[in-house]
Every structure is written in structure tokens, then in C-alpha cells.
């Protein structure tokens, strides 16, 4: 221990701490300033940024004693003592620059340092300053707007207007850009994510991972680890009290491996110790004897006879699922075709790279005020977590409580079990709270990813531009365990015709088990992959036929009345043509005289366009429902409770807006309680763009029921007929008479009446694939056009502009919805241009954040977004899913643009400038390799 004197946010501290501390550790653990977040500990993500004597540094690699005698400023030091927010904070809120909020402290600190030096930064200066401070949610456009506005305010020129999208028919609270829930806490650093919680006597846990991607376990010896002072528990498969399996669709994933490991992320043993260092040390002392087995490294090999079978109990061997779509007569379809194109496409494994690594805290019954075994976790599916934890611990579900904390981004990557069961087991075993926080490097290896796919797609059209047939074969790398492969690859398959009228289709998808990290849900749910093949083929065909690519899409677009390839007749809310015409109009008006492509020196410029559709909700016959509870209080406030997760996408404000709307309450009088299996009714998984629709509807319907109850009571209280009452700003009125909501609730209580309503909403029924009928209750539609610049001397590709038209039924919160669109687009640019999670024969090469580049602010293009509101009658106020539709067609739009610019078509992602340039030089027109093929 040594003396460290530092000033933090103006306060002098004399600390007596180990010299081995980093500044981030001192701030978070010694001073409890948990506003500073840790995302990677590699100096890559920048979210740990604090200011030292005004200069931004990454606190995760900054030795604490380097700060000796200096002044540190953290996010907690931005607001004034009286609580008044700093202009940067206020403008981040006002411009919608906060989604999950996990990156927000880092972005704001970096921005503050910039504004201290430069009172009027332009886009370029902002991009230079924030280049290595990442945000995975916003797409950066709102961040840039917020910083410029803060600068203007600090110059005394007032803040700048918010770039609010146009929407139709705004209501009382719906279609209003209210601030998201918890946003103030997120900008002040007060918001608590799982790792921000500490409990007295808390232990720290680590997991021993497999040493091979595929091996038999011969022996596990934990004796030495157990003997290490400070180690409190070491558990293996032998200590799993209940069933040693979990899984969302198939229960095939061991809690702790007993006989075989199937991927490098498999857990073999878990340790709880007094400190993280001791836990890490203990892992090194666990001896595991393995017999390595042959590795199944890719899905096609998995399907061959030579491949070892990875799950002997699975009835179809390594074939996790064969998914089929049959529609019309495929042979007759191709017989009618004048033009046929057939190509093979490849998409890589993609990592969610949510900025908050996974963390779970297990609290045993009787500790810290918890009556039952409680798990704190930032999870997308609290009720399924509880179910899986209970089964593994051999407990009835009522004996387990899962409390969802704020989530620092999910994107589908926080649906599966990671540390929840382990933390629960260790808490049970030790009788103490146990925190299991993954390092970024562990997170990279463990959680399920987006499926790598190989897609052979054959598309036929007549010479007048009518699609007649689609035949496709998809291979999806499902990895070691099923996760959501079945569902995800089903979506890839059913959407493989694109949003078009295709009378004849034959699509086969093979989801395969391999020894790679499992694949599961990822924003876009398989459709991202098939859309790349569909929309590339569309452009190839258009060129063969000699028809404009926009016209070709218009000719074939789904409309009301269209029957999809799964046999569903679309009855309403098919906004594709409208998205197309909005985008087309913008493209054409850009420069008066429109050209698809042009040159300027060694730079080639071009536009490319692609369309997409995406289902809302689980569909396929799965009962899709959510329960909500709404309660009015004597202080005039209302609380709405659902167990759905808000991972930054904004479910909380959607639910609050629905309630505020139904009760005509000011939005700030509505509180939201999410994700507590004891306090909030089941909202189902936050996946498949379903929450706005399903939980939004649950809140809407339940609030309406509460309104009826309130109206009845108010009628009695005021002695007026109920039908003459109306709601206005927290009052129930009748002519001259009125009663405050709070007063009414007090009266109800006094008369033994409940002011709480609970109700389960059931979404419209759907049909399983293969049975015809409605497989989904709604689809969202999108068109995007990308303007790219290709350096013809280096092959480097830059996206300059994206024009997006997105049909989402209704924009419940226009500004936050625009943030979803912008964030989805930039995330999809990563899918196209920068991201590939590389696995070499089962061994992840991508085991560092430094090896995985997602788009930074410097990649952020200009985004012009049109929201199209083609209402769906069953949605809340007409809304349908938004989370995924904006992230699907960006990749093909960019690749179509690259083709127009260079004459070279990309068949494998992410685009490799190396291969692109060599193709340009060699006069080749097709590139079948990607970045990860450079070897």
C-alpha cells in the first residue's frame, strides 16, 4: 500500500492503495465513481476516458500512480453541484445521443476536452477528437449534433435545433420525442449497470475455459486451486445441483462440461475467491487432462460423412436443422425465366461488440435483504434466465429471482446464458454474493455470434423484368450449441426471396453444429445474411435484363394482396414502395442530373440501392404474448411494469408513452419498472423486433383497462355519468368538475378499490412454416441507397452517404427511432466493411478487441432518414418492429454501389480492399474472398 494524492472532480483524496492499481480501478473500486466504464482494458474502445489536467486519457491502462498529484475529471464532475447539467450532458439528452448509455461517459468526457480547446468544432474536428471513443448504438450522427449544439450553447449562442424526423398524426404522448427513461442518470454517471453494484462480503468469480475446441475430458483436478488462500469455492460439473444443461430452444449446452468440450468458450470449472486476482490465480492451478478430438471447423465439413458427430443425442447428427421453403413449382418457374443468375455468397461470423461485457451477480437467500436466490444481470430474457437457472440449480422457479439491471447494449448477444447460472451456483455454494464479470477477451470467446453463412442463390426473371423463381441453398455455421440457430436460420430462409413477389421458390437451409463459438441472435436475425445474396442477385439480374435497378425492384415489390413464399397473404401495412420512392426522390434530387456512377481523378463515386423486409415478433406459431401491470398512486404518478428488457433500444420509453397516452398523463408522471421476475410480469424475450409491438400493446391495453377502472371510480366520486368524463394532464374532468388522479387513487384506496391492473396481451396468432397462412403478424420494410467513394489506386472504400426509407408503421418516439435507424445503419456498415470474427479451426483468432474493428465516428456517413408510417392495425397505434429492419440492406446497398463504381462485384464480406484492388488491376469483375482470406 502506498499513498496516492489526487484531486478528483475538485475533491482532494489521500488514498492508501496498492501501486498496482489502474486509474479506472481507483475511480470505480476505491472511490465508488462507477460512472467511468470499462469496455475492453486494451486502450481500444475509449469509453473509460477521463481527463487528467484537462487531457483525455484511457483510464483502463493508466497506472493510478501516474496521476500522483494531478487533477482528474470524470463524468460525475460534469454537472454542477446544484445538479444543473453541463451543456454537453443536456445536449446529449436533447439530441437523442444516449441509447444504452454505456459509452456515454467516455463520449462526453472526450467531447468536453475538445470543447475546452475548440469552441466551434466542425464535423472533422469532432471526428478527430472522438475517433477512438466508440459507440455501438447511436451511429454517431446524434453525437455530432449534440456536441455542435453544446458548443453553440457554451459560446453563448444558444443550443441548436434538434433534427427531429417528420411524423404524421402526433397524439398526446405517442409520436412525441420524449426523453428516454434513465437518461439523466446515464449522463451523470449515476446509472447502474451490473458491474456497478457491490455488496458486503462479495466474492469474485472466474471461469476456466476449454483448452481445445473439441476434446474429451479425462480428468479434472481442483485440489490445488481449492488450497489457494482466498479461494472460497471451486465447482465443476459434479457440483451442478440440477440438470447440467441449458439452452433457449434445445437444451444441449452444459452448465459445466463433464465429458467433452465442444468449443473454446466452454466452461469446465468455476472459482469464487476474495479478490479477482486470486480467482484468476486459482484458474491456473486447476488441472484438466484432455484428449483432443478432430475439430469440425466449418458447416460444409460438418455435413460430410467424415465429420465427427458433435451431439450424439441429436437425431439428425451435425445437422441441427434443415429448414425448407416450398412455393409454387420451381422447375416451371425457371422454365419461364429469360434470365437466370446463380452465385455463391459468403458472410462471416460477426460479433455484437456491445460495449458492456457480460456480468452477473448471484446473491444467496437471506443476504443483502434478498429472500430468495437472486441474480442481477443485464439480460435480454429475464424469465427464460430464471427458468434455466432454476433447472440447473434444481430449484422451483419461484425460489429464484432475476433482476434485470441496465444493459450496456445487447443486439441479440445477451439472450443466451453466460454467467447467470455460474454466479447462482457459487452464491448457493458460498452463502455470499458473487460477482462474475467477463473480461472483454472472455466475452469475445464465449457468447454466441451472428451466423457465418454460405449462400448459393439462383434467381430467374423474364425479359420484361418479372421475378419468376428463386432457388437457394444456405449453410449456417451454428457453432457448438444450438442457441437460437433454429429460429435465426428459419428467418434467413423465409426471407430469402427478398421483399418481392416470387411465385416459385425452393429454399433449403442447413443449420450445422461445428466446434466454433455458437451462433445465435444478432440484430437482423439471419435476414442480414440472406439479404446480401438476394439484393446482389437483384442488381446482377437488372443489369442482364437491361432495366434500372430501382424500376426492377418496383416491378416486383410486395404490396397489399401479395402472397409470400411461405403462403402468407399480406393484408395491410406493406410500405415498401413508399420507402423506395422516398429514397429514389432523394437520390435523384441530390445533384439535379442523376448518375449512378462518376469519376474524379483516382476516386470513383457511385450509388447502390437495396431493399429489405423483416418480420415483427416471434411468429411461426409461437404464442407471442406479454403481460403488463399498471398501477396508479396517490401522488398522481403511474408505474407500468413489464419484464421486457431495454438494452438501449428504448423499450422503456415506448411502454411509458403508451401508458401516458391511454391516461392522458404528462410523460414525466409515468415510471417504468422492467425486468424483475418478482415484480414485473413476463414480457417474453427481447428479440425479433417484437417489444414495441408486444410489450407496447400490453402497456396500451392494460393502461386502457386501468383507465376504465379509474373512470368508474371518478364517476362515482364526482357523481357524474362515466361516459362524460375525460382525461387531461393528470385530471379527470367533467364540465366544471374535476379530480386529480392522485386524489382519486386515495379515494379508491379508502373505499377498498384497487388502482392496479394486470393483463396479458396476446399478439395475433401465427402459423408454423410449411402450413401456409400467416407466419407473422407484421413486416417492416426498408430501402437504402448508399453513396460510396472508392480510391481506385488503393481499393479503399468509404461510405459518404446513406439515404434510408424505413416503414415502421408508426414512430412512437421519432427522435429515438431515428437513433435506431442511424445506429442500425452504422452497425450494418461494420458488417459490410470492417467486421469479421475469425476462427481458425475452432480457435478464435479474434480474442482481442484490437483484432475486431467496428465502425468508429470517422466512418460515420451522412444519413438521411425518412420514416414511413404505414400503420398496422394490430400494432400499438399502428407501430411495428424497428430494431432490425434498419440494419439489413445496408451491406448489399454498399456492395451494389462498389460494383457501379468499379465494375467489380463483392461476393464475400467484409469487403477486402486488397482483393478489390487486385481485381480492378487484373480486369476481373468478381471477388470471392474477404479480409479473413488474406493469409
Amino acid at each position, binding site marked *: 500500500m502506498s499513498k496516492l494524492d489526487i484531486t478528483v472532480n475538485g475533491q482532494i483524496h489521500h488514498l492508501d492503495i*496498492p*501501486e*498496482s492499481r*489502474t486509474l479506472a480501478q481507483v475511480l470505480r473500486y476505491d472511490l465508488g465513481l462507477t460512472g467511468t466504464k470499462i469496455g475492453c*482494458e*486494451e*486502450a481500444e474502445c*475509449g469509453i473509460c*476516458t477521463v481527463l487528467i489536467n484537462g*487531457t*483525455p*486519457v*484511457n483510464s483502463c*491502462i*493508466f*497506472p*493510478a*500512480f*501516474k496521476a*500522483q498529484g494531478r487533477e482528474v475529471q470524470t463524468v460525475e464532475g460534469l454537472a454542477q453541484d446544484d445538479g444543473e447539467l453541463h451543456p454537453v450532458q443536456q445536449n446529449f439528452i436533447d439530441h437523442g445521443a444516449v441509447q444504452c448509455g454505456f459509452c456515454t461517459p467516455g463520449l462526453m468526457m*472526450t467531447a468536453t*476536452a475538445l470543447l475546452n480547446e475548440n469552441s466551434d468544432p466542425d464535423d*472533422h474536428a469532432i*471526428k*478527430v*477528437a472522438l*475517433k*477512438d*471513443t466508440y459507440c455501438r448504438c447511436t451511429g454517431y450522427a446524434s453525437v455530432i449534433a449534440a456536441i455542435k449544439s453544446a458548443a453553440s450553447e457554451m459560446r453563448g449562442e444558444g443550443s441548436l435545433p434538434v433534427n427531429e424526423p417528420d411524423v404524421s398524426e402526433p397524439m398526446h404522448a405517442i409520436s412525441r420525442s420524449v426523453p428516454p427513461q434513465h437518461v439523466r442518470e446515464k449522463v451523470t454517471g449515476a446509472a447502474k449497470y451490473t458491474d456497478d453494484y457491490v455488496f458486503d462480503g462479495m466474492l469474485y468469480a472466474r471461469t476456466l475455459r476449454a483448452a481445445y475446441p473439441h476434446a474429451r475430458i479425462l480428468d479434472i483436478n481442483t485440489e490445488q486451486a481449492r488450497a489457494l488462500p482466498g479461494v472460497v469455492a471451486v465447482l465443476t460439473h459434479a457440483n451442478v445441483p440440477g440438470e447440467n444443461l441449458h439452452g433457449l430452444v434445445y437444451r444441449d449446452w452444459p452448465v459445466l462440461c463433464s465429458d467433452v468440450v465442444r468449443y473454446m468458450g466452454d466452461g469446465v470449472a468455476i472459482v469464487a475467491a476474495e479478490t*479477482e*486476482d486470486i480467482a*484468476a490465480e486459482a484458474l491456473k492451478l486447476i488441472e484438466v487432462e484432455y484428449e483432443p478430438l478432430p475439430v469440425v471447423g466449418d458447416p460444409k465439413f460438418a455435413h460430410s460423412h467424415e465429420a465427427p458427430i458433435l451431439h450424439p443425442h441429436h437425431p439428425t447428427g451435425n445437422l441441427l436443422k434443415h429448414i425448407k421453403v416450398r412455393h409454387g413449382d420451381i422447375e416451371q418457374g425457371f422454365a419461364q425465366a429469360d434470365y437466370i443468375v446463380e452465385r455463391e455468397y459468403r458472410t462471416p461470423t460477426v460479433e455484437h461488440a456491445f460495449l458492456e461485457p457480460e456480468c452477473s451477480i448471484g446473491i444467496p437467500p437471506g443476504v443483502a435483504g434478498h429472500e430468495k436466490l437472486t441474480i442481477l444481470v443485464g439480460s435480454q430474457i429475464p424469465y427464460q434466465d430464471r427458468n434455466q437457472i432454476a433447472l440447473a440449480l434444481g430449484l422451483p422457479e419461484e425460489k429464484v429471482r432475476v433482476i434485470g439491471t441496465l444493459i450496456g447494449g445487447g443486439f441479440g448477444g445477451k439472450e443466451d446464458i453466460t454467467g447467470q447460472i455460474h454466479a447462482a451456483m457459487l452464491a448457493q455454494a458460498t452463502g455470499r454474493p458473487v460477482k462474475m464479470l467477463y473480461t472483454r477477451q472472455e466475452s469475445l470467446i464465449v457468447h454466441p455470434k451472428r451466423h457465418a453463412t454460405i449462400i448459393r442463390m439462383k434467381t430467374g426473371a423474364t425479359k420484361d423484368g418479372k421475378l419468376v423463381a428463386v432457388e437457394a441453398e444456405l449453410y449456417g455455421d451454428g457453432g457448438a450449441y444450438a442457441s437460437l440457430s433454429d429460429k435465426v436460420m428459419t428467418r434467413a430462409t423465409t426471407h430469402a426471396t427478398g421483399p418481392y413477389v416470387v411465385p416459385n421458390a425452393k429454399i433449403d437451409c442447413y443449420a450445422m453444429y461445428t466446434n466454433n463459438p455458437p451462433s445465435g441472435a444478432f440484430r437482423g436475425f439471419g435476414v442480414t445474411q440472406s439479404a446480401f445474396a438476394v439484393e446482389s442477385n437483384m442488381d446482377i439480374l437488372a443489369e442482364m435484363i437491361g432495366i434500372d435497378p430501382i424500376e426492377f425492384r418496383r416491378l416486383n415489390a410486395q404490396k397489399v394482396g401479395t402472397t409470400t413464399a411461405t403462403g402468407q397473404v399480406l393484408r395491410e401495412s406493406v410500405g415498401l414502395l413508399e420507402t423506395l420512392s422516398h429514397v429514389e426522390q432523394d437520390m435523384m434530387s441530390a445533384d439535379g442530373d442523376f448518375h449512378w456512377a462518376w469519376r474524379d481523378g483516382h476516386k470513383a463515386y457511385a450509388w447502390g440501392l437495396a431493399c429489405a423486409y423483416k418480420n415483427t415478433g416471434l411468429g411461426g406459431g409461437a404464442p407471442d404474448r406479454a403481460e403488463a401491470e399498471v398501477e396508479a398512486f396517490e401522488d398522481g404518478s403511474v408505474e407500468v411494469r413489464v419484464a421486457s428488457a431495454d438494452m438501449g433500444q428504448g423499450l422503456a420509453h415506448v411502454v411509458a408513452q403508451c401508458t401516458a397516452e391511454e391516461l392522458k398523463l404528462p410523460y414525466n408522471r409515468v415510471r417504468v419498472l422492467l425486468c424483475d421476475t418478482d415484480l414485473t410480469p413476463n414480457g417474453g424475450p427481447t428479440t425479433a423486433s417484437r417489444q414495441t409491438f408486444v410489450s407496447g400493446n400490453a402497456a396500451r391495453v392494460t393502461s386502457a383497462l386501468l383507465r376504465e377502472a379509474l373512470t368508474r371510480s371518478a364517476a362515482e366520486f364526482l357523481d357524474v355519468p362515466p361516459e362524460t368524463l375525460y382525461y387531461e394532464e393528470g385530471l379527470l374532468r367533467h364540465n366544471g368538475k374535476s379530480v386529480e388522479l392522485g386524489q382519486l387513487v386515495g379515494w379508491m384506496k379508502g373505499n377498498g378499490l384497487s388502482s392496479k391492473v394486470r393483463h396479458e396481451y396476446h399478439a395475433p396468432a401465427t402459423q408454423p412454416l410449411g402450413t401456409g397462412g400467416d407466419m407473422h403478424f407484421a413486416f417492416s420494410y426498408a430501402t437504402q441507397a448508399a453513396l460510396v467513394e472508392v480510391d481506385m*489506386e*488503393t*481499393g*479503399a472504400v468509404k461510405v459518404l452517404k446513406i439515404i434510408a426509407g424505413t416503414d415502421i408503421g408508426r414512430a412512437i418516439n421519432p427522435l429515438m427511432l431515428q437513433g435506431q435507424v442511424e445506429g442500425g445503419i452504422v452497425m450494418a456498415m461494420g458488417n459490410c*466493411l*470492417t*467486421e*469479421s470474427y*475469425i476462427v481458425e479451426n475452432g480457435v478464435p*483468432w479474434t480474442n*482481442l478487441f*484490437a*483484432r475486431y*474493428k467496428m465502425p468508429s465516428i*470517422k*466512418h460515420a456517413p451522412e444519413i438521411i432518414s425518412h420514416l414511413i408510417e404505414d400503420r398496422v392495425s394490430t400494432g400499438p397505434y399502428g407501430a411495428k418492429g424497428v430494431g432490425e429492419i434498419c440494419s439489413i440492406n445496408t451491406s448489399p446497398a454498399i456492395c451494389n454501389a462498389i460494383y457501379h463504381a468499379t465494375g467489380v462485384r463483392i461476393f464475400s464480406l*467484409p469487403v*477486402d*480492399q*486488397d482483393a478489390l*484492388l*487486385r481485381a480492378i*488491376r487484373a480486369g476481373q469483375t468478381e471477388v470471392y474472398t474477404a*479480409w*479473413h482470406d*488474406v*493469409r
Partner: protein
Amino acid sequence: MKLWNHYHTPHSIDQAIALLNQYQGKAKVVAGGTDLIVELREGHHPIQEALIDVTQIPELTRLTTNNNEIYVGAGVTHSQIVKSAVLVARATCLVESCGVVGGPQVRNVGTLGGNVAHALPAGDGTTSLVALDAKAEIIMSGQRRVVPIAEMFRGPGQSLIDSTRDVIIGFRFVLCSDNEATAFKRIMRPQGVALPILGCAIWVRLNPAQTHFEAARVSIAPIGPTPGRAAEVEAILIGQPATDTIIEQAIETALQILKPRTSKYRATGDYRKEMIAVLLRRTLQLAVQRARTGQAVPEGIGME
């Protein structure tokens, strides 16, 4: 996880050397820590008994000009280099190369000395120091020495000095005068590790009439296992007219003699060859233009 036990911040070189001696190989010099701490965490080095922070030693943090010579302390950060008016004007390539290292947070603490000591074949600061023909002042095995920059490297990631024992104090080089100029450019890819596919720094001196190359130094990396100059390319230029034709000849020579390799997930050898041509052309043209105009506005800072 704990990566070191003790942290010392000596205020003189003697103290630093004494501390290193005291730990007998179990302590390392640290400057910005942007390489070292990240590598410690990745397990590339054992847990250090101590880190010896050299950034509070006056000799290492100085940036001083003496007539045409400049001294840049090894502990001077990339950000300080980018902000130095004299370097911007008279050693532009160094500003351009330090200006593209990482993001602001890395540049605010990462140092030129750390870049050289890390000894990557394509460390950006290093590439420019080679073109500037800098000399490193070091303490090696207790002896103060002055070493030409090219002799500072023994292999990929291996520098001449052993940072459990030795210290780089600073760098000296001659600033550009009339008719002289420098430029640096690099080619990156948006995927994978943030190291250049190829970087190129050039120093040129034109004759007083500004028609011919009087002298040139060309540094292209990574080509070999260590940073170094392309002497054959320099030879083509010297004494010849400063025209595009000669630049193309230099490129041709470079393509004949330089044999870039394919490196996994970075670049193919063929692509690197293409980039040699592109970079040499762009960088040489820029350097010549700067030498002629006497004006140098650094390009690509913070973004390339």
C-alpha cells in the same frame, strides 16, 4: 488483474537506472504504457515487479531547438509532437506519423521513445525518424551512447536496448531548411489490428534552383524485419530532375528491389507492391511540392 507490483516515478536518469539495477531484470521502463500495459494484460510479459515511469525526467520530456538541430525527448508524447510548431514546419513527416497513432487518448500519453523501443517493423513514429536520419541518445548497459536510428533495431519487436536495464533518452536530428522538406503517408485497412499495411516517410533536398534532387532519404515499412532505408531508391533520385518521370523511375526500382511479404490478415505481398508505388508517388510528390513552396500543412492528422 494485477500486472505490476510497484510503480516508481524517478526524476533523473541516474535514479531510473539505479531503480532498474535494483530490480535486476524484474522491472521495466514504462512511458505512456500504450504498448506495455496492453501487452502485459495480454500475457506477453510476466507480471513486473515494478514499472519505472520515465515521463517525469526532464531530459526525456524536453523538446528543444538548437540552430538547425532539434532534440526530442523520448518521453515526449505524440500529441506534443503534433502541436509543436517547429516540427510542423520543419519535420512535417514526424508530425504526420505521430498524428495517426491511435486516437487522441493514445497520443496524449504514448511517446516517441516507446514507439522506437517497441521496435515494430512499421511503427509510424519510427518510420519518420528513419527518414529524418535521427540519432538516438541512450543509456545502454550503464553507458551513455549515441546510436543512428537504423541501428536501434535487432528484429521484429526487438530493439537494441533492453528496457529492463536501458533507457532511451531522446532523439536528435537536423530540421529542414530551405529547399528541404519531408512527408509521411500510410495505407491502412479498416479491419483488424491498427498497424499500417505500409507506411512511407521521405526527406528530400532540392538544389537551389529547385529543379533537381540533391539528396533524398526514403523509408518504407514494413519491408524487412526492422525499419530501414531504401538506398537504391534514394540513389535513383539523387542528382536527377525532380520530375514525375524520375519519380516513376524510382518507383520502378523500388518494385524491383523491395520484396514485400504477405502477412496474415494485413495484406498480400501483391497488394503491398501496388501500395509501394502509390505511396512512393504520393509521398514523393508531396515532399517535392513542400520543398518548392516552403509550405507544409500536415495531412491526415487524426484520421488516416
